[in-house]
Structures are given as structure tokens and as C-alpha cells.
């Protein structure tokens, strides 16, 4: 883990002929580490398949309102007339018909397909936003601590340790329900956008520590290198040192950390909604959908199957892509 991906990439650049799959036809062409990584990624079938799956999911999620219009069903529309007296969907496999591709939810009779599309949008938005925020905070904290050292490093490391020591779930369970009360009166609705912001904030407050530690370690190993010495000798300012000299050499580990953070936030958000403190009814959400479907395992397995399989594929694809990205950026860390 502590191998420097920059170092690995740099060596690969020096030995392009060692690449066994790609025959060297056009002679030695100068290629950047990024191009090399991209070429390696292209050759990885798992990465390509999971990448395509992800793009598909993201497009579906972004186009949710459009899909809803084409499909002709809204996410909160109820079809209770298609349920029997016990609130179970009529017909085959949880009410699958040409109008309702994945069937209907028991009790409320909402369309599972369109709620999954909207739920995906909620999940992916929260996960991406949280990953972006945590990566930004983590990189800033890590780079400062690593480069400046001394008292700044000590303080930032302390804060990191404290944040790591706080139990995330207990904190979330205590904070999330009360934040709404703080900002909204007893007769005002808490808008879904606020719930989403709170969730992103909670993830940001706890998620930045691993990135910060990773970046700090990388910076410590880089700051004694010749190019940094050279820049310092030329009288470069702090900003220049951090963002022009160090950051470009850190993209690889940051990218890997980011791509692995997204799936963990998808499951994290689902877990919070599962516990009833995430996104509330009636906003569509994966975690809550799975939570609500579990009691129906025996009586309406289709209700459990579709959201369960979708979140499984989504998270698996993200994790596989993250792994492949790490392999591509850091070929030395063989599995």
C-alpha cells in the first residue's frame, strides 16, 4: 500500500518495451503516466465492463425525470387498485406487467422500476458529492500536514485521530434526527434537499480521515525529493509548492481513494436509510427500499430481488473499477 504510484508510473515510462501485450510498432513514443495508465485500463476487461455498467447507471440516474416521462409513471404515483385486499400486488411475480416492469410495492402500490431509477439518483448523488467533499478535505489536510510538518502536522494528525475515534453510527444516530429540529419549526416540512445535505455533511465529517492520512504519507515521502528541493531553492511560495509541485504527483492515490469511496458511501447511505435516519419517505431511496422489502422475502420475493440485485451490481461495479484503477495507476502492486 505504501508504494508510491508515481514512482511506479515513472518507471513504466522509462521502460515501455517491457510491456508484453502492446508490440512496439511506432517506435518509442513519449507517453505521459496518465496515457500509460489509460492504456493499461483499456486492456482490463473487468474494468471496461464495470465502467460501462457504471456509465449506464449514471445515465439512467441523471435521466430519471425523462425516463419517468417516457415510462409514463411518476415515482410517487400509487396504484393501489392493482393490489389485493392484503395490499399485495395482483398478478405474477409481484405485479410485473407491461406497464410496471419490475412490479409494484406491496401496501402503497408504487412502481418499483421508476422508484429504483429515482432511488439510484439519490444514492449516486449523495455518494459522489460525499466522495468529492471528503477527498477535497482529505487532500487539503493531508498535503498541509505532510508538507509543513511540525506543529501543523501534529495538530492535523490529532484531529484526524479524534475523528477516527468517534463512532460514526452512534454519532449519526444522535445527530441526524435532531438537525432538522434545529433548522425547521414544528410545523415546517424538512425538505429532501436538507436531508441530503445533512447526510453529505455527516459523511464529510467522518470520511476525510483516510484520504488525509494517505496523502500525508505520500507528501512526506515526496517533500525531500530533488524537484521539491529545487523549487524551494528557486524561492517558490507555499501555494506553488503544494499545488504545482506536489499535487500533480498525488493524483493517482487520490483517484483510487475517490473511486473506492463512492461505493462505500452508497452502502453507507443505504445503511443509514435502512436504520431510518437517512432519506425519509416519500423520496425514493435504495436503503429504505431494501429495508421495507425484507419482511416480504417469503411472500413477494420480487420486491426484495430487484432493488437488492441493483445495489449489489452498482457497488460491485464501483469496487471492481476502483481496483482496476489502482492496478492501472500502480502496476507494481501486484495482486
Amino acid at each position, binding site marked *: 500500500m505504501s508504494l508510491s504510484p508515481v514512482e511506479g508510473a515513472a518507471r513504466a515510462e522509462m521502460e515501455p518495451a517491457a510491456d508484453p501485450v502492446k508490440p512496439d510498432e511506432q517506435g518509442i513514443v513519449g507517453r505521459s503516466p496518465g496515457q500509460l495508465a489509460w492504456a493499461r485500463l483499456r486492456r482490463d476487461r473487468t474494468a471496461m465492463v464495470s465502467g460501462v455498467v457504471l456509465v449506464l447507471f449514471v445515465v439512467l440516474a441523471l435521466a430519471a425525470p425523462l425516463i419517468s416521462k417516457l415510462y409514463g409513471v411518476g415515482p410517487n404515483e400509487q396504484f393501489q387498485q392493482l393490489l*389485493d*385486499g*392484503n395490499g399485495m400486488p395482483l398478478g405474477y411475480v409481484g405485479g410485473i406487467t407491461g406497464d410496471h416492469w419490475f412490479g409494484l410495492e406491496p401496501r402503497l402500490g408504487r412502481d418499483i422500476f421508476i422508484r429504483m431509477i429515482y432511488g439510484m439518483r439519490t444514492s449516486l448523488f449523495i455518494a459522489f458529492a460525499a466522495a468529492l467533499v471528503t477527498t477535497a478535505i482529505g487532500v487539503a489536510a493531508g498535503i498541509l500536514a505532510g508538507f509543513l510538518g511540525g506543529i501543523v502536522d501534529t495538530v492535523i494528525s490529532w484531529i484526524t485521530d479524534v475523528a477516527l475515534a468517534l463512532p460514526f453510527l452512534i454519532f449519526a444516530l444522535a445527530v441526524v434526527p435532531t438537525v432538522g429540529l434545529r433548522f425547521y*419549526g414544528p*410545523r415546517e416540512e424538512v425538505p429532501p434537499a436538507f436531508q441530503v445535505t445533512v447526510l453529505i455533511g455527516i459523511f464529510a465529517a467522518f470520511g476525510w480521515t483516510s484520504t488525509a492520512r494517505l496523502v500525508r504519507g505520500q507528501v512526506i515521502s515526496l517533500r525531500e525529493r530533488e524537484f521539491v528541493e529545487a523549487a524551494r531553492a528557486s524561492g517558490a511560495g507555499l501555494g506553488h509548492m503544494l499545488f504545482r509541485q506536489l499535487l500533480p504527483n498525488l493524483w493517482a492515490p487520490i483517484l483510487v481513494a475517490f473511486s473506492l469511496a463512492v461505493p462505500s458511501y452508497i452502502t453507507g447511505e443505504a445503511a443509514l436509510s435502512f436504520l431510518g435516519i437517512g432519506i425519509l*419517505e416519500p423520496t425514493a431511496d435504495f436503503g429504505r427500499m431494501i429495508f421495507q422489502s425484507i*419482511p416480504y422475502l417469503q*411472500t*413477494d420475493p420480487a420486491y426484495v430481488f430487484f432493488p437488492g440485485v441493483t445495489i449489489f451490481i452498482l457497488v460491485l461495479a464501483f469496487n471492481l473499477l476502483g481496483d482496476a484503477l489502482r492496478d492501472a495507476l500502480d502496476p507494481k502492486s501486484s495482486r
Partner: protein
Amino acid sequence: MRLKRAAATGGALALLVVMGACSENKGTDGGSGENRVQSGSIATDPKDSMGPAAEVPGAAKGGTFRVIRETKISHLDPQRVYSFAGLMNAPLYSRFLTTFKDDGSGKVTLVGDLAETPGTDVNKDCKVWEFKIKDGVKFEDGSAITSKEIAYGIARSFDPDLTGGPTYLQEWLANDPQYDTKWNFKANKTSLPPGLTAPDAKTLKFEFAKPHCDLPFAASLPYTAPLKADKDTGVNLDNQPFSSGPYKITKNTAGVELVMERNENWDPKTDPVRHAYPDKIVWNYGPDAEAGANRVISDNGDDQTALAWNGVPSALVARVTGDATLKDRSVRGQTPSLWRLTINTQRVTDLSVRQALNYAIDRDGFIKAYGGEASAKAVTTLMPPSTIGWESYDAYPAGPSGNVEKAKELLAGKTPELVLGISDDSPELATQLKANLEKAGFKITVKTIPTDAKLDETSKKNNPYDLWTDQWAADWPSGAAILPVLFDGRTIKAESNSNTSYVNSDEINKEFDRILAMPAGEQGKEWAKLDKRIMTELAPAVPLFVEQGYYLHGSKVGGIYLSSIFGYPAFTNVYVKQ
């Protein structure tokens, strides 16, 4: 290669799931049938109050009957019992002044249990009541039960440490809701509360400041169980009650099990209702509703003689109703627990808005969202059908799915903005109500309330909500235990109100007083009339549904019926098939 195998496994899994759900759902045959209308009477002939109870056909003595329940029974001390599980279990180890002769059909007769008759109204003004105690009734140690021990039992219910039990008798005797300030049990252990006397070993007398014609009903609750003063272990009685009934507690491990075995000193000849067929009754705590139901469905070993107390969870209903072999092992019926959508009349002051809510409500959809017809049955009255004298009416006829047009007409273009408070464990009910009412032109804001705080929050007079769901299950099937409690405006206080609609109409209040002064046997029809009048004139709530009980028991259990009073499985007739 690996990928192919994974795909094959995944495909097979998907196929399995699809096949498992492949039978077509063509709909259901309806819920648990007709409204069971209650008819109740009070036995005047002492012969009705004598035992032994008539034999149950097919019943046999012996064996161990088990009850599977998720959590332990909150209280065993008869003076503190008030939960449904406790109320159904208490008759096994204690006897009361009066009790209901019941077979689950809805025809109940109030008979004397320890008393020879269900009370004598001495001056015909419901203020002085006299009970004669039966001969031959004994405690588990063989000593005789006299009026002194029953009076002591009632006296100790005044102890503020012994929380949890009903408080009707205490409030009536003290003529004050703060009864424990009127009479201090701890300082007067050898005397009796004001108005309660035991002139001789066979007589118990109540004297009230105000008429209480419902006393014979109120005396059927477990707080009239007798206790010897020297057997009173205070709060510890909750672990090991001193038995006066057919069983005594032989083992009580909190949260694990409760074992009751035969009390040889109980004489069936004195008891008009209890049979006590099994030698042993055991409560097993732990499994949740789903696990309990699944255990009883699979019917293995000890579970053959078990009942799943937590009932059939609504997610399992489709499976249980679809399985014909479970039909004769299931017990279904209505409970007295009525759900209504309470309207806070302090905030929603416009009667036409309240009436529009009544027209707009989609009961059918709400019941589906709640769990379906197996667990709920629509009502349009404020009293449940199991109330004595109940009559069906619909003050705002709009069909099972509501009449949105009629509601819009009443609103006349207004779009009232209402805040719906909902407990956070059932958000789907709010989703349903919001969608339903917004179709009629209301603007609904949903506020979730933590489940355990909901009752406290909504029973505060100045709470911020306009609408919320309330439940009420009366302690005896009389309108007197429902309408005055829920709609008498003179009882409104700052906190813990039962009148959560906060209505206060002088005319209706006068009606309460008039009917309450009538003999208990004649009140039934009057309550039904007043029920309709309250709905028509005040529309303080939208009646939603009455909960339906749905229980499963093992193949070797017989004699289980749902109590006509509480709607939960009763154990007086239970037997184990040999």
C-alpha cells in the same frame, strides 16, 4: 470461465426467485368476515356466576401449552397489569371481583368471579355497591379468600410505587384523578381507602361521591385480585404474584420464560369461566413476530402445542391465507382497538374542513398501506363494532375509497394547509394520507415524531399538529369507556389528554352526564345515538378502521378464541390435544 459460472449461478438464483413467486395472485376472499356485533348482559342470577364452567367439546386435561412472544409481559402483579398480554394472562393465576363469560362470539355475560353476583346497586343510584364473596374460594396456600383480602388488593393499587395498572376504582373512590394524594397507602396499610369497606368476611362495599354505573365492568380488571397483607412483597410481587387462580407461578426468568403450574387449591366448582385443562402453561420470550409465526407454521416438536402471541405479521399474511392446511390452526377476529385520524379542532376550527376530510378519506387505500384486510376493517363510527349497543352509520357516505369531488365541493376552492404528525416507524401511512388528501385539495405537511414520544406529544393541549392517527381500545365494551373519555371537553388539561381532538361542546358534555347516570344495562343504544351525533355535529376525527386479530397455533392446541373484550387470544378454554 469463472465469469460464465458466476453468470449461471446468478441466473439460476434469479430463476429460483421468479419461480418462487410465479403463482398468480388473483386477489383475496376478503378479511375475517362480518362485523361481530357485541351483545352484552349482566348476570343477575347467582347461578350464572357459579362453576364449574361448561365443558369445551373435545377438550382433555393435561399437557403443556406454550405461548411464544417477543418480549416479556410488562407486569405480573395483578394491581399493575394493564398490557393486553398481561390482561389475558392474569386470569390464569388470579381471580377478580367480576369477570366476563365469553366464547369469542361477541355474546358476553358479566358474571361474578370471586363475588356471587356482579354487584348490587344498593340504592339504585349507582353510588353504593355491594358484593357478596363466594364460599370455597382459596389462595394457593389453601387459606380462604375473604372480602378483607380483596379490599387489601384494591387498597395497595393506591401505592404510587405500583405503577402501570388501571386507575378507575382509585379515582372513583377518591373522587379525584390525583387519588394517591387523597389517600396514602403506605401510611395506612392497615386501613382502607375512603369509601371502601369490608363490613364482614363475605361483604365488600363501595361508596362513591358520584354515580358510577359502570362499576361491575370496572371491577373485572385485574386490580380487584385479592392479596393477603403478609404476602405483599411490594414491587417484588411483580416477579412472583401470590396465586388465587387455577395456576401458580413456579418459575419466572425475566425475558426468557414464565412457567405456571396447576394450583391444587383452586376449586373449579366456584369458577364460572376458567377450565384450566393444561397441566402447565409456559411463556417463551424472544422470537419476533415473524420468527414466532414461522415456528408455529412449521409445527415441530414443542411448537405443536404453542401459540404465536405476536400474530401473523402483515408481510406473511399472503402466505398464511394461501395455505389451506393452516386454516384450522388460525384464529381470526376483530379487536376493540379503533384507529381514527384525529383532527385537532383547536387548529382546524372550520367544521366544513373537518367534514371534507371525512369525505376525502380513502379507507381502502389506508388499510392496504397499513397491512391489508387481514389486519384492519374499515369503520365509520367512533365506537368499535364490539361495543355493546353499537349501530352502523356513515355520517359522511363517500364509499370505501372516499369521495374527492364531494370534499372539494365542501372546501369550495380553499386549500387548507394541514400538518400531519406521524410516528417514525410507519412513514408509509403518511405517504398514503398525503397522496389521498392532496387529491381533494388539502396541502399536507408531514412531520415525523419518534414513535415512543408520539403519544406524549399529541396529548399535549398546545401541540403543533393538525392531524395524526390515534388508537383507542376500551377496557370494557361500553360506550361509557369510550365517548366521554375521548370527547368530554371538561377533561382537557395541559398534558396527557385522552380528548386529543380537544373538542368541548356543552350540549355533548350534558349528554355524557345524562347517559352516565343511566343503569349500565340501558346505556348501549344511547351511546350509539350520541356517537352519530358527535360525528355529525362536531366531526372531531375521521374513523379509520378496527384492528383485526390474526393468530396461529400449533396442531395440538384447541380452545383458543379471541377475547370479545380485548380482542387478544384468551386462555380460559385452551387445551392440549392428547
